[in-house]
């Protein structure tokens, strides 16, 4: 039983990170109907931002850790906005396929420039918060994992507030339903889209920091696999659906945690993709999403 609970806990911790990344995918898809391939690399930039920012706080501390977290989130938000402005916005009226290729180009650019600047060799993850291990009657929980839960919950609540209660959040939702109508009622689509990218990228940045806290090393290609899994999570929850992304992330994290302990570890990528394909074939709207029909 303890084993089960431990795996579950690890899975939830991992799932929280996937949820943060998945939210970025889903929000951008919601407003632009576009899969931002480069999102996983923003996650990586977040982790590296944390690495370099942590040099200003050589001693692990609570305020220091949060400063790094927020700093990384801001850097990633800026990166996301810049990418959208330079690479995606000019192609908005073009075929979806062109933007997809551009996104792939941005992704490759970030990965390879990262390898060039940071070096391809993995770097040790920075220690941001003071490390402590907690033992709850057999269940082991590290302070880093607790940080993951706390930060993720705070961010999810903040996101919910922004999307549901603020003007810009409402604009985001309006855009995702009908961009033309949204602009007709006075919404500046460009600003809302920039905001969405910034928000999603900030969450990915947070994910990058939290991920680095729970894994020994970071490297420029670290975003590829988590990005893929987070994407599957977003689709699983219903792409474009925000609570769905959070749910999907948690589910994928838990599934992975349990499967890592099994014999199938070399097949993890294949399993993730198979799951994705099955969802898209049999329930493309995901768990919480709605199906879209083409009008003839």
């Amino acid at each position, binding site marked *: 039983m303890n084993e089960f609970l431990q795996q579950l806990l690890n899975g939830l911790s991992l799932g929280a990170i996937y949820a943060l990344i998945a939210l970025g995918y889903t929000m951008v898809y919601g407003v632009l109907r576009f*899969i931002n391939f480069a999102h996983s690399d923003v996650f990586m930039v977040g982790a590296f931002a944390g690495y370099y920012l942590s040099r200003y706080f050589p001693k692990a501390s609570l305020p220091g850790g949060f400063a790094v977290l927020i700093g990384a989130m801001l850097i990633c938000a800026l990166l996301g906005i810049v990418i959208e402005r330079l690479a995606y916005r000019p192609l908005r*009226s073009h075929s979806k396929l*062109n933007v997809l290729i551009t996104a792939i180009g941005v992704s490759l650019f970030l990965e390879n420039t990262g390898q060039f600047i940071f070096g391809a060799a993995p770097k040790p993850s920075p220690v941001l918060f003071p490390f402590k291990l907690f033992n709850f009657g057999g269940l082991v929980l590290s302070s880093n994992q607790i940080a993951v839960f706390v930060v993720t919950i705070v961010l999810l609540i903040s996101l919910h507030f922004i999307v549901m209660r603020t003007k810009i959040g409402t604009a985001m939702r309006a855009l995702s339903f009908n961009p033309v109508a949204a602009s007709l009622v006075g919404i500046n689509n460009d600003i809302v889209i920039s905001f969405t990218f910034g928000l999603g990228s900030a969450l990915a940045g947070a994910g990058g920091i939290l991920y680095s806290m729970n894994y020994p090393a970071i490297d420029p290609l670290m975003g590829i696999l988590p990005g893929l899994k987070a994407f599957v999570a977003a689709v699983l929850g219903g792409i474009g659906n925000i609570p769905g992304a959070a749910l999907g992330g948690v589910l994928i994290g838990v599934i992975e945690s349990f499967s890592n302990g099994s014999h199938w570890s*070399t097949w993890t990528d*294949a399993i993730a993709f198979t799951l*994705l394909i099955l969802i*898209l074939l049999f329930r493309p709207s995901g768990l919480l999403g709605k199906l879209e029909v083409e009008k003839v």
Partner: protein
Amino acid sequence: MFGRAKTLLLGAIVASFVLQLLSGYINPYYLDVLTGIGINIILAVSLNLINGYTGQFSLGHAGFMAVGAYTSAAVSIFLGPHFLSALGNGNAAISVLFLLALLTGGIVAAIAGIFVGAPSLRLKGDYLAIVTLGFGEIIRVIFRNIPSLGGALGLNGIPDYTNLFWVFSFAALTIYAVTAMVNSTFGRGFLAVHDNEVAAEAMGLNPTKYKMVAFVVGAFFAGIAGGLYGHFKMSIDPKGFGFLKSIEIVVMVILGGMGNTVGVIIAAIVLTLLPEVLRPVEDYRMIIYSLLLIILMLVRPQGLFTPRKRALAERKTT
């Protein structure tokens, strides 16, 4: 009556044979580059049938290449010795064996094409791209987990059967097949399904049939290219057939102009030569490549060789 197209094909095969005879006089480095060009032409033209003409955005073409490479290598390595000992080791026997290996690779890849093509019947655009990417990766992981084919370390000891004759004959065959198929009343259906699937259905075209044919034929030739590649490099490993390889082929199709066979051929040549040209700045190669990709999409999304008019046709308004 032997039509013009078939005469050209025959001429190309003969020319390839002559080229092969002259290959002794060609610098080995250039021979390698030429072989690479030929293989990339087959990959790009076959993908063009799926992506360019039929409009099914496939990001998993390298997966078909992998299937062809591993299958044909298996035939050569495991069946080859029995075959050759029965028929003697002469050039004719080797040619027959190689042709057999290549065709087997192509057919198995075509079967894989059925599996990858099936989801395309229900999915479009971004979703289809992701699913085909997924299939490509699944194929790669499968081969990584087959110990008798080398597993993660790759398969070595593939006999060195590829030469300019084979490469360019198959390149000519691929170009012929794709062009011939599309240039017929039946073949116009590929373009129609791409342009407006609802209208195509209303005109009695079965989109399923066209999409499946495109995937199967495209996969077949990608498999052939894989077989040629394996017997050229003499060693293959799963890493070389991943997502990045698929992207490289897709870039050739986009650069050449989707649905523009001549443009795609030129693009394949240019993009095979590019890494050679960029050798002095090898370290920056991928950075330059990714920047070129972005710039290409921003500045000339219709490809280098398609006129502006056709580009406007591709633009979709929201």
